[in-house]
């Protein structure tokens, strides 16, 4: 049988065409990884003899490296391919954690890569010498500035609003005319308003990780104003201005004071929780304002106004008997909601700060009890030196109250649920924190603890454009060591509670700078990526 040349040519050209078309259009799927050995995240008693990866199709290796804590590759032989598998021998690995970085080319010549980790032996023993690049623990200057601003805001706002409340609830009913009230209110409320406005710029700088000069750029202020922080600080600053404007009118001034305190609860942890917790936080703040804000006016009246001081003390004392329990109950309820009490009190930085705050509150309560049960009755009996004693205890209360407010401000800038660091210890392990804002207005706060070589935990807080906790479909972390150029490790985070995600015990064996990307699947079709540069410091050997 003779086949015409033309037909052969036609068939051949069709075949070539089809082949080209197939290659272009229907390309093969990429190789996917079926199994690794040792398994991802596993903790082995002794060193494995080899590293092995199995794929669903034939591959050729591009890279296979096993990094130890010093960033050295611990493979002792070139990777060998057998069928769909890739394996390589490792030397006896000492206790510690290890990072396997791999890249292969699949049949369609598409590169595929990834990473996994495992640990060997007792990893609690620090295993790092001074061999690695020393890295500075990054503490954001913006965080510090924000905490300081918040502390000054608490002190000034509580004093202004507290003085206004004191005048409305105690001064006016007892017909006390004190000329220094308006002056005190104006001074404190104007300072509070200025700090509240400045905070918006600081917040923007923190979110954008801008240099200090960023405070001169409108973009930075717009970013700060775009979060729940913006409206909250607008309320605080506005109400503070109105307090200053109405300083001579007792009731309006007190009302604006209450409004300013409410403004504080429109942002921060209060705003990301449920509505009842926000209301309780407000009641807690208002009670604190009444109690702590009354201390300085009390001091002045005891000092200057012999005629009224006993009546004032008795009226304040009676009201405090109601306000103080409310203060503590609301405070406890909110703390209970935010943390796993009592375990977190010792285990988290937030808990440790809260313990400090509670101790300060306990001291205040003790001093107040001494005043109520011992000193005030002594004053009533006309005992000599009773007034001086009273001045001393109130002065002490003022100092403790100021300390307590600074702790409260630090608490407000600390994520409640980051496990395991000790403060004040010789080797301080603060961990690492970062915050980013996506173009669509999603705010993400990331905490890595302890941000040191070995096992770390990741904590992600998400806040939507409306300032409330945001729970997307999924949150995934992607990690790679920048300096060593490793392949990327992907790990899903698990939901702890609305807006809060956690990844426990991810091994970061090598110190230095890491690229950390958090991918948030906002809805079925939209994802947002947040990129961080993480500094992992070496754990020093003992």
């Amino acid at each position, binding site marked *: 049988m003779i086949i015409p*040349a*033309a037909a052969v*040519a*036609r068939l051949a*050209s*069709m075949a*070539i*065409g*089809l082949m*080209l*078309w197939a*290659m*272009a*259009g*229907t*390309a*093969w*799927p*990429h190789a*996917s990884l079926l199994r690794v050995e040792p398994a991802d995240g596993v903790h082995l008693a002794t060193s494995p003899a080899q590293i092995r990866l199995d794929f*669903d199709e034939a591959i050729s290796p591009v890279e296979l490296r096993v990094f130890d804590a010093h960033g050295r590759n611990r493979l002792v032989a070139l990777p060998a391919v057998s069928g769909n598998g890739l394996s390589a021998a490792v030397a006896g690995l000492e206790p510690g954690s290890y990072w396997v970085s791999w890249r292969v080319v699949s049949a*369609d010549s*598409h590169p595929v890569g990834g990473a996994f980790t495992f640990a060997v032996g007792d990893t609690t023993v620090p295993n790092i010498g001074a061999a690695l690049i020393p890295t500075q623990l990054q503490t954001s200057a913006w965080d510090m500035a924000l905490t300081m601003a918040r502390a000054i805001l608490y002190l000034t706002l509580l004093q202004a609003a507290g003085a206004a409340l004191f005048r409305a609830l105690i001064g006016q009913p007892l017909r006390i005319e004190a000329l220094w009230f308006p002056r005190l209110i104006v001074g404190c409320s104007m300072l509070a308003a200025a700090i509240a406005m400045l905070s918006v710029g600081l917040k923007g700088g923190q979110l954008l990780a801008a240099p200090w000069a960023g405070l001169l750029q409108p973009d930075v202020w717009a970013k700060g104003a775009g979060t729940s922080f913006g409206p909250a600080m607008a309320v605080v600053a506005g109400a503070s201005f109105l307090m200053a404007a109405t300083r001579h009118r007792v009731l309006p001034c007190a009302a604006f004071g209450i409004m300013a305190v409410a403004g504080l609860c429109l942002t921060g942890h209060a705003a990301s929780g449920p509505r009842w917790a926000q209301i309780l936080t407000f009641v807690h703040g208002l009670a604190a304002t009444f109690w702590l804000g009354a201390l300085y006016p009390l001091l002045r009246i005891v000092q200057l106004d012999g005629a009224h001081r006993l009546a004032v003390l008795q009226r304040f004392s009676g009201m405090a008997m109601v306000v103080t329990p409310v203060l503590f109950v609301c405070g406890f309820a909110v703390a209970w909601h935010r943390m796993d009490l009592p375990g977190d009190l010792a285990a988290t930085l937030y808990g440790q700060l809260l313990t400090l705050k509670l101790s300060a509150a306990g001291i205040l309560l003790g001093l107040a009890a001494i005043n109520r049960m011992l000193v005030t009755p002594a004053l009533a009996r006309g005992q000599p030196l009773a007034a001086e004693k009273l001045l001393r205890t109130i002065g002490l209360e003022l100092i403790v109250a100021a300390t307590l407010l600074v702790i409260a401000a630090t608490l407000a800038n600390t994520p409640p649920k980051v496990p395991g660091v000790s403060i004040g210890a010789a080797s301080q392990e603060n961990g690492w924190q970062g915050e980013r804002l996506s173009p669509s207005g999603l705010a993400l706060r990331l905490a890595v603890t302890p941000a040191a070589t070995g096992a770390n935990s990741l904590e992600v807080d998400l806040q939507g454009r409306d300032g409330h906790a945001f729970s997307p479909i999924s949150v995934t972390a992607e990690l790679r060591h920048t300096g060593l150029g490793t392949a990327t490790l992907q790990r899903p985070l698990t939901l702890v509670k609305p807006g809060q995600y956690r990844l426990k015990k991810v091994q970061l064996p090598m110190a230095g700078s890491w690229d950390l990307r958090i991918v948030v*699947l906002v809805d*079925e*079709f*939209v*994802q947002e*990526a947040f990129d961080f540069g993480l500094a992992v410091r070496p754990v020093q050997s003992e």
Partner: protein
Amino acid sequence: MKNLMIKRWAGFGFLLAISVGPAAAHVLLETRQAPAASYFKAVLQVPHGCAGSATTALRVRIPAGVISVKPQPKPGWKLAVVKEKLNPPVDNGHGGKITETVREVIWSGGNLPDDFFDSFVMISRLPEQGEVLYFPVVQECQKGLTRWIETPVAGQSLSDLKHPAPELKLLPSGR
């Protein structure tokens, strides 16, 4: 005569090959640019399943501004659309108003083995303004799913993305 035939066929094969475009291991639009404010036939090509598993459903999110969406039914697949209200309503070009638009198109209940390829077709009217439109796709398979939803950020190109959303460049309108 024979030579001419050979050339013609070879030419046809070559044209066919380049018309399909470069390395299409991704879910892509067959035509990747179109004039703004034109009617556009979007052909989504699905070249493979999810890591070897057969495709059973394809869901497409219609980008904002794209209206009058009509997907083409496929034998063996159920077809559904998810609609949303348009606020404010837009002109339909014929004196009326469009108050509702298709937000999502879902082909489901099918079976496209990993070894085969298929295309999913719809027509729509493109917006008058804009540069690039993305048609994010969720590909559901017997085992697992793939989200073709990544969009490049500043400094990234499509090739930096693992699972890019199908992209359509808007050309200046013909009018």
